[in-house]
């Protein structure tokens, strides 16, 4: 089971309330799908600058693997409060610790609710529907 202290999107981001901010990253499933289990297959991650406005469901950045570029989508609307720029040069962190050190951005949300997102059990069930 994935961490139950946060919520999940259908595009495989996670969102976790932390003080006034929502911390955002991507799930182990997303990392596996992008990298096919090969850490070196992740080549680039483009994150926004702090201060940029982001909108729920809209792209806030891109992550790139050997053969594809995927959008990173904001789980909530708000303003980028902090960026984990260190991962841009250390993408292996996403494989090792997607739930902690692999966080991507912190958003200062307009509304401090994650109720529109899936909990861990619902995300698990959602992944089952995606399997085939």
């Amino acid at each position, binding site marked *: 089971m994935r961490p139950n202290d946060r919520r999940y999107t259908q595009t495989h981001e996670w969102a976790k309330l932390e003080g006034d901010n929502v911390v955002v990253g991507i799930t182990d499933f997303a990392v596996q799908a992008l990298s096919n289990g*090969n850490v070196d*297959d992740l080549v*680039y991650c*483009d994150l926004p600058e702090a201060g940029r406005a982001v909108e729920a469901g809209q792209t806030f950045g891109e992550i790139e693997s*050997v053969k594809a570029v995927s959008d990173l989508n904001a789980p909530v609307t708000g303003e980028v409060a902090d960026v984990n720029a260190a991962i841009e040069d250390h993408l292996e962190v996403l494989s090792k610790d997607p739930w902690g050190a692999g966080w991507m951005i912190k958003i200062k949300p307009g509304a401090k609710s994650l109720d529109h997102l899936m909990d861990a059990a619902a995300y698990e069930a959602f992944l089952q529907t995606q399997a085939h």
Partner: protein
Amino acid sequence: MQTASTAAPKRTPLHDVHVALSAKMVEFGGWYMPVQYGPILDEVRTVRTTAGLFDLSHMGRVLVRGKDRIAYLDRICTNFVAKIPQDAIRYSLFCKENGMPIDDLLVYKGAEEVFLCVNASNTGVDLAWMRQHTAGFEVTIEDQTDALAMIAIQGQTSTQILQPLVQGLELAKLGYYKFGFGTVCGIANMRVSRTGYTGELGYELYIPRAQVTAVWQAVMQAGEAHGLKPIGLGARDTLRLEAGMPLYGHEIDANHDPLSAGLAFGVSFAPEKGEWIGKSALQAIAAAPQWKLVGITTTGPRVPRQGYGIAINGMVVGEIASGSISPMLNTNIGTAFVPASVDEAHAKVELDIKGKRQEASFCALPFFSRTRK
């Protein structure tokens, strides 16, 4: 996609072999195909250092017979089929009247028949186009895609691996873009060509569907001591790009003609070839070229991707056709269409990724080839 269909993807006769090897299977050109068995860049390096085995059974295979086969093919092909020596192979395209490609293909000229190998995604369109243009010619067109499977072995150890399994055909004496027939794993009269999509020494084999699994297993076993590995379509795309070879849907398609893509070697305006479909449109393009395909390298983090902009001296005037990480050049590479007037020796070139610029340089094509460079 012009051939988009709701039908389930087809499975090659080697499907279960790929699944057993834990390949990642994806839909490609109407088929389930292995995109990778392991890390893609490792697969690229394997083909560049030892050898790789590919399932290419998704490609279209067409046999053309009948007394008018040469005249007929010279009407629909861009290359000069009558001039191809017997037992040789040439690159060609099918174009529409407007000079835009329907597909590109290899033409195998035999004594009694001509064999064509076309792209998976275009096979249906190609066959329909071919059948539409038979009027006045005594020809028969036989789709052998389902009857015959196709595998390729590519890399410097290919000959060592394959020759012990082949009787009646001396591979070392088979020239580049030549073909012959031999007994492969005891199966008589198999078509073997010295062709490929990697820029390496290698062979492509056409084997009846029911027997290809046994041949695949025998080649894998024979190759074990020579570093042979199965290679997926992901690595194949990088290998062909390093080798400067076009891919339909990237360097050529309904909007990108073969001359702008640098494929003049596959287009013949020889008067003896007569009139052919697309000739006058392509002659007009040849007389006043608007675009050219160039190679670029970029040391920045972003990999060139189809559709990214190309800025010349600060202005976005072109577009990436293909891109990849290149293990051979140890940098990111791409092909791009730029105006024919661009002076590569003096122009400053940058990638434009949604407005973000990344430094790039021009690089002669092919980026790498053991067969051509």
